[in-house]
């Protein structure tokens, strides 16, 4: 600035100042002394626009039905009949005066939801694939207006079928009317039922808790026609298999309010601020109560800013860190010193004292074998003979005798076990160890170490000979496994914490994880010291970062061991807190009745998703290794040479896992023939099988007779979101184009039992039907897209693990355009199926095969020669429409059956009849009506113990009979009996549920929910073999994989599996681990295309990459890159950040193709979703069934669809992109 100008400005400023001064004298309005401000009340201002903007006509309570675990109550603002915006409700019942409250709950995703209501991606009308609808209309004309014949015509003609299948995912959707849409869908169902059978139809709709009625309406439709519902929790890899393995329970975790009670909190692979946004404050606030927070995360994650300490192991190596912590705790709290609280806890509540038989190996050493049982030793003479194999035994410290404690699986199902199924040890004092006891000697056991391929360690354990067997205790094996030496036990023991040569020392883990040994020792000591001081108030919040791995069960077991050893489980403020998936339907029993239509017919078909997709999307054909590759060097080799597909089929034939389609024949035909023969179904099937007339479908999944034909997806985005091996879904299931380059298994690596067909099928599904309110990858590939109501347009119920309330969805507006609620759509479809069934299906007998199910006597079969269980189920297909809309009689006559408890609900049926009215005609005449979503919500609440104290009390009394009077369960029953929640309560404000036999924890207005508190406080057994929490698993397949005890297994070595991606193309590339953690800007795929979220994010798919990796390939922030591996291609932009560790990239899931995805350079086609780079690998040990807690239950136990072990090549691509 020139000097002259500065001078002029100064002069002007002074002049202005003087003017101001003068003005002050002239004005009457007061000013501040220095003339800085003038106070005026004499001027009109116009602030009306913002008042008008704020003005609204009504506020309606609803929530968001998305799998986020939030279950937040929201206020939806309506203005001129339109949804304008939303803010959180703040009226949750208080948790008490001395703790924070739940208000407000919500997150930025939820806050942006109203954008969808009127967004241009809203599905406003029914749409169908143009090619299909033209052919359908033409065929229907030719078949005199018969829609079923028309469907048969199109799908029976390979050319026509190919025409519309290959159009999937290529645009060309056309608008059609509702009548025609329902007619096409119903015709497809009726034709498939007739031609192939109900088990060729399937429904996929996950996470009932996120909108129970919407889920149940469709699941009920499927159950009534006999179609399987596919599981999701295990398929999503959100189900921690370690939970059923250790606890005999699906997942039961503390509400987030219980974090407050913890004195030590580890966030392990769980980025709480991002993935548990509404709950994160509990952690932030509990720190102010002196809680110590340790964050374990490979990146500097959002949670890390709350940490006292940040440990950053290499991705997937968390198990090594936990094993080393266990090493320290076992040494310092169990060997060098015995902490009384821990000693007492593990004796009463874990399997540590139980006896394990050691099996001799060829090399003269031993391997840990099975639990020693009453059958082995001829003990428990009063027990029913066939149950003694389910009664493990232990040594009594005092008498030194082997005894059968109460509370084992052997006491659970028999008349003799009544009153004995409890953890009351009476006079017994379980001996933890045989070490130093008279008559004890030592033998060497060989244990696998998976950190080195094929390696083992040999260490001695103290043993006794009992009943002809060499036995030791689980505790002694634990010390051996964890490398905790004791004098006079020879073997490969580490010499100190600094000894890195052998598992499981802190130094050993440092070489694997990069976390310093000192930090691990410190963390372990603090953890144990806090647990001792607070009697178990240490908690580990564990998340998908550690749970989505192929070997996550071993990772989790190493975590859980820390908690069990220190007495933290079943304690408020302690234990595991696994939050991956909103799996907790608090009103469980009622929802289950509705969703499985168990009020009309039993059993329903429930199928684990992972083996279903593994077989039906042809991914097994690309797996180039056999079971040997991942088996333990210590295993007997019983699975040698078998392909995973063989093991899937084996599991089905043994009745371990259900499998649909079951047989290579229509189960309606089989049922008719069984009925005509008047035979026992199981015997009849066995005869047919023996005669070679009947094959299992899973033995030849590519036979057209064994394909799934109709799939309905609602409340879900299967194709875009959870489809691991996405490109194989497109290729084999849908017959669409794809980007995969993987080669099929060479002849020597193919299955032994399962038939290999030279030509892989393309396009198994005849119909993909999708219900949604927005466009997703699933709707882009669907044949029929039905416009669904949003969460602000319907009645429903929501609940979660994270808080103890149930609350309502309510319509702020009626569904606009031609949208309908899921409830209405399925009722419409059921009516249309019934109409078209007339003269075609009418009453049929369906031969239903089910697995040996957990929490039923099937989990304790008398011997190992097992198979599926067969049932003949009568179905009147013309009555589906009547039955879906009314409550059937079975809950009164046979009772609700939940987790092994049966409760009869005559009173509730009467109440529902009075509340809802009864059907006046048809097949459901006289039954309580369930013809509206509100009535279904009433039924769910009325039939559940958590929301209806009478039901809870009756269940607790039933349980008390089994557990005996010392359990005090009668008292618990009395305390909850008067609680009752009806739907209008949940509309008024969130309502707290009560304790119920449906869950393992106690809760009350003044008590936070913590799992297994009923077990620890009422001596109720866990639903496991020993009735205790298990460190040890004793199945033969578990032994094959060397996982009897917690063990560290590293991430899969892709090179070893023949899956290593090869750098190709021009330019520099880098090979990196490819992780897909949960995103800040979406809930799975939901909100991913929402403009508000994209604006706050980077406006399209991105991959986070470290500074060094980016540099190595010349990538700058926001450059376009491509990630390629044999499974597919991802095109995205790079976010470069020093937050990321080198060697690992994040592609936050689920970034779809929907917005801003150009064509790839690698294939010339549109880049894929985050799952384009993954392929499904089934862990064989998850297929085990019929073995106590290792028994199937839907979404409770089954193989996981893990996807964390992927590796990809990344390179910078041309920055010119085309769409």
């Amino acid at each position: 600035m020139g000097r002259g100008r500065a001078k002029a400005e100064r002069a002007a400023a002074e002049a202005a100042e003087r003017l101001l001064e003068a003005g002050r004298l002239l004005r009457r309005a007061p000013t501040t002394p220095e003339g800085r401000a003038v106070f005026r009340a004499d001027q009109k201002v116009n602030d009306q626009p913002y008042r008008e903007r704020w003005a609204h006509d009504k506020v309606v309570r609803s929530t968001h039905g998305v799998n986020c675990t939030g279950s937040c109550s929201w206020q939806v603002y309506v203005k001129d009949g339109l949804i304008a915006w939303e803010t959180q409700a703040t009226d949750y019942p208080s948790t008490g005066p001395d703790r924070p409250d739940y208000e407000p709950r919500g997150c930025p995703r939820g806050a942006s939801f109203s954008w969808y209501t009127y967004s241009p991606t809203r599905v406003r009308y029914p749409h169908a694939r143009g090619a299909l609808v033209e052919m359908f209309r033409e065929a229907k004309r030719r078949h005199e207006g018969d829609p079923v014949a028309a469907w048969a015509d199109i799908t029976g003609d390979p050319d026509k079928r190919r025409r519309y299948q290959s159009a999937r995912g290529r645009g060309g959707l056309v608008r059609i009317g509702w009548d025609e849409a329902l007619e096409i869908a119903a015709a497809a169902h009726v034709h498939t039922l007739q031609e192939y059978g109900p088990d060729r139809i399937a429904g996929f709709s996950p996470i009932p808790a996120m909108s129970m009625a919407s889920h149940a309406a469709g699941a009920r439709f499927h159950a009534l026609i006999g179609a399987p519902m596919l599981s999701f929790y295990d398929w999503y890899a959100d189900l921690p298999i370690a939970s059923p393995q250790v606890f005999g329970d699906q997942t039961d975790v503390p509400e987030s309010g219980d974090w407050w009670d913890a004195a030590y909190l580890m966030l392990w692979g769980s980025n709480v601020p991002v993935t548990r946004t509404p709950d994160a404050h509990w952690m932030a606030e509990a720190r102010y109560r002196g809680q110590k927070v340790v964050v374990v995360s490979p990146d500097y994650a959002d949670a890390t800013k709350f940490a006292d300490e940040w440990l950053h192991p290499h991705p997937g190596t968390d198990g090594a860190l936990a094993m080393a912590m266990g090493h320290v705790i076992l040494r310092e709290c169990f060997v060098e010193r015995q902490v009384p609280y821990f000693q007492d806890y593990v004796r009463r509540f874990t399997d540590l004292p139980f006896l394990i038989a050691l099996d001799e190996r060829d090399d003269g050493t031993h391997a840990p074998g099975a639990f020693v049982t009453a059958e082995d030793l001829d003990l428990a003479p009063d027990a029913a003979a066939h149950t003694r194999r389910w009664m493990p035994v232990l040594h009594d410290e005092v008498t030194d005798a082997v005894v059968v404690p109460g509370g084992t699986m052997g006491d659970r199902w028999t008349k003799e076990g009544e009153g004995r199924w409890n953890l009351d040890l009476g006079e017994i004092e379980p001996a933890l160890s045989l070490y130093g006891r008279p008559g004890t000697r030592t033998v060497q056991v060989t244990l696998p170490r998976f950190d080195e391929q094929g390696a083992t360690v040999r260490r001695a354990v103290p043993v006794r000979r009992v009943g002809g067997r060499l036995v030791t205790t689980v505790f002694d094996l634990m010390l051996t496994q964890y490398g905790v030496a004791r004098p006079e036990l020879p073997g490969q023991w580490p010499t100190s914490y600094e000894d890195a040569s052998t598992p499981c020392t802190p130094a050993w883990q440092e070489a694997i994880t990069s976390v310093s040994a000192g930090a691990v020792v410190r963390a372990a000591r603090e953890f144990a010291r806090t647990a001792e001081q607070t009697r178990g108030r240490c908690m580990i919040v564990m998340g998908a970062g550690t749970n989505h791995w192929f070997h996550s069960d071993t990772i989790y077991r190493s975590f859980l061991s820390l908690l069990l050893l220190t007495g933290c489980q079943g304690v408020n403020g302690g234990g595991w807190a696994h939050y991956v998936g909103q799996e907790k339907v608090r009103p469980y029993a009622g929802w289950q009745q509705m969703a499985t239509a168990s009020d009309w017919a039993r059993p329903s078909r429930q199928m684990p998703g992972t083996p279903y997709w593994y077989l039906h999307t042809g991914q097994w054909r690309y797996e180039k290794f056999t079971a040997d590759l991942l088996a333990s060097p210590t295993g007997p080799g019983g699975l040698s040479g078998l392909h995973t597909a063989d093991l899937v089929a084996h599991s089905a034939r043994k009745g371990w896992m259900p499998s649909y389609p079951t047989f290579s024949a229509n189960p309606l035909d089989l049922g008719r023939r069984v009925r005509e023969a008047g035979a026992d179904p199981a015997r009849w099937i066995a005869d047919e099988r023996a005669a070679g007339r009947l094959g299992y479908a899973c033995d030849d999944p590519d036979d057209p007779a064994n394909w799934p034909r109709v799939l309905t997806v609602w409340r879900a985005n299967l194709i875009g979101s959870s489809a691991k091996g996405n490109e194989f879904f497109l290729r084999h299931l849908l017959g669409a184009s794809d980007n995969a380059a993987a080669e099929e298994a060479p002849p020597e690596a193919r299955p032994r039992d399962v038939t290999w067909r030279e030509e892989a099928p393309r396009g198994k599904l005849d119909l993909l039907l999708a219900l949604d309110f927005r466009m997703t990858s699933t709707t882009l590939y669907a044949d029929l897209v039905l416009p669904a109501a949003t969460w602000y347009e319907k009645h429903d119920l929501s609940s979660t693990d994270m808080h103890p309330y149930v609350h309502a969805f309510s319509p702020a507006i009626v569904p606009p355009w031609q949208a309908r609620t899921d409830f209405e759509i399925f009722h419409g479809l059921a009516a249309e199926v019934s109409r078209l069934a007339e003269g075609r299906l009418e009453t049929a007998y369906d031969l239903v095969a089910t697995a040996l199910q957990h929490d039923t006597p099937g989990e304790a079969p008398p011997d190992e020669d097992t198979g599926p269980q067969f049932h003949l189920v009568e179905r009147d297909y013309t009555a589906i429409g009547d039955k879906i809309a009314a409550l059937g009689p079975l809950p009164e006559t046979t009772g609700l059956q939940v987790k092994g408890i049966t409760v009869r609900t005559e009173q509730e049926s009467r109440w529902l009849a009075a509340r809802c009215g009864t059907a006046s005609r048809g097949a459901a005449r006289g039954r309580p009506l369930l013809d509206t979503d509100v009535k279904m919500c009433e039924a769910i609440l009325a039939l559940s113990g958590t929301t209806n104290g009478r039901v809870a009390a009756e269940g607790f009394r039933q349980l008390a009979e089994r557990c005996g009077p010392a359990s005090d369960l009668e008292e618990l029953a009395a305390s909850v009996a008067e609680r009752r929640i009806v739907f209008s309560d949940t509309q008024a404000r969130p309502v707290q549920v009560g304790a119920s036999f449906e869950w393992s924890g106690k809760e009350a207005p003044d008590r936070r929910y913590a799992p297994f508190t009923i077990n620890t406080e009422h001596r109720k057994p866990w639903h496991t073999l020993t009735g205790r929490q298990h460190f040890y698993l004793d199945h033969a397949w578990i032994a094959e994989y060397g996982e009897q005890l917690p063990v560290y297994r590293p991430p899969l070595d892709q090179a070893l599996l023949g899956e290593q991606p090869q750098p190709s193309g021009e330019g520099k590339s880098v090979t990196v681990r490819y992780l897909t953690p949960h995103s800040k800007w979406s809930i799975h795929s939901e909100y991913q295309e929402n403009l508000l979220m994209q604006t706050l994010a980077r406006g399209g798919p991105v991959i986070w990459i470290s500074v060094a990796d980016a540099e190595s390939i010349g990538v700058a922030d926001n450059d376009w890159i491509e990630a390629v591996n044999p499974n597919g291609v991802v095109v995205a932009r790079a976010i470069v950040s020093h937050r990321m560790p080198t060697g690992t990239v994040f592609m936050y899931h689920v970034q779809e193709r929907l917005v801003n995805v150009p064509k790839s350079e690698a294939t010339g086609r549109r880049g894929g979703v985050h799952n384009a780079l993954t392929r499904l690998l089934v862990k064989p040990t998850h297929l085990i069934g019929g073995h106590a807690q290792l028994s199937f239950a839907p979404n409770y136990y089954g193989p996981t669809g893990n996807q964390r072990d992927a590796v990809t090549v990344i390179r910078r691509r041309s920055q010119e992109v085309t769409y």
Partner: protein
Amino acid sequence: MRVMAQVAMVMNLDKCIGCHTCSVTCKQTWTNRSGTEYAWFNNVETRPGQGYPRAYEDQDRWKGGWALKHGRLVPRSGGRARRLARLFANPELPSLQDYYEPWTYDYENLISAPLGDDVPTAPPRSLIDGRPTSVTWGPNWDDDLGGGPEHLAADPVLKKMNADVRLEYEQAFMFYLPRICEHCLNPSCVAVCPSGALYKRIEDGIVLVDQDRCRGWRMCVTGCPYKKVYFNHSSGKAEKCTFCYPRIEAGEPTVCSETCVGRLRYLGVILYDADKVGDAAATPDEQDLYEAQLECFLDPDDPEVARAAEASGIPHDWITAARRSPVHALISRYRVALPLHPEYRTMPMVWYIPPLSPVVESLTATGHDGEDPAKLFAAIDSLRIPVEYLAGLFTAGDPGPVEASLCRLAAMRSHMRRVNLGEERDPAIAAAVGMDTESIEAMYRLLALAKYEERYVIPTSYAVSSGAETDGGCSLDHDGGPGMYGADTFHAPLVDVPAGGPSALPGGHEPEHAGTSLRGRVNLLGWNGRGRPAGLFPRRGEQTE
């Protein structure tokens, strides 16, 4: 003494999880309309980072706030003459590129794409001119340390630091900074408005733009050092955070506060002596500005203050609210909250409790017991987040008040850990940070339990006329007004697609299935409920195909 009252805010950054819920609820409520697509009255920044708009804290460039010249406060953007000379060409105005060019997507393509050869996608389009665009900058580009070290190194606070901060994996640190208008006691935006359109409400201190008086000179945009006044490019008027006055007047918290799931926002009354503000803002040493502003605040428990307040016409309700004010407690009583950039001399009224960050690891790494309080206090300067960085935000670089605040938080944790573990209370812990057991537990109650009715203490009596009598009409409603209820909406482009389809736009890469999806779109978000917008319902006789 001229007692005045203001409803002020404190945000506890130590609890902020960086979720941006506040930003979204605010945007949905107030600025999802044309002209304000790019405006976020509330935004959240990851620090270190450049923030929004890009590097707004660089006042050498943007000239916001006040400068002290010859002992007198003058707007940094210059004296009146300089400002007037630049009315029509103001180089100190952030461009749209500095905020970001808002975009949308060709969403309609997803459902209406004809049968083609590949999967339909929705490519990005500029929300300003509807053309194909590529996304190169956004309102939250730095989120979670995104952008790379070179980019983050352009953070103006980082640049000012003397110490070398390495933006590397092992040393990584970050925290979140939610920002709204500061509703300053000495607002430079008000001072520089040539039209007198900006005003600070006498009754509650909220700073607003009178939409009738605003002539769109944009001096306020330059004048505000926090860049929290936005120019509505549709109405041609300035708009800014209103502190949700329609809610505050009804005793309800602001939208950003009530929807804050970190439960970190506090609202309450501050009484201050308006006569002191000018001198305080002109305090010579920047590092004394924090204390100087504290000096302006009055103790509501002082009977003389109460008398003077009543004499000034402040309703009794406000005086009792001031006594219960969580904001007063956190700022003046516990002294844990600090002002944002006091060196701007605007006397901001949204204050912040600085964030703790991993400390124990650095302590224990040196062999100390991480839980020993004495050691902890000594180690506050070895927190992952450099204290100097926080001082650059809150105290014009003076580490003292920041350390004092962090030590009080750390002491509260140590004190309460003993309670939690069932050990005896140790009064020495509180004493070490100049507190006692009662006050440290009272502070714990406010920060940890943080009950709704204790976070928000908002009086509702309004004795002073706001002068807001309306004459029925509203200047904003007519065409060309700010478009509050206009037909265009947040996600609709502003321009019509030219004949010939979007591909006729220069430089446009077209998606395979672009179709004519941007045409004839109806968006009800901005519909006023009257009439039937074309395209909302199918035309009579329109057949389904």
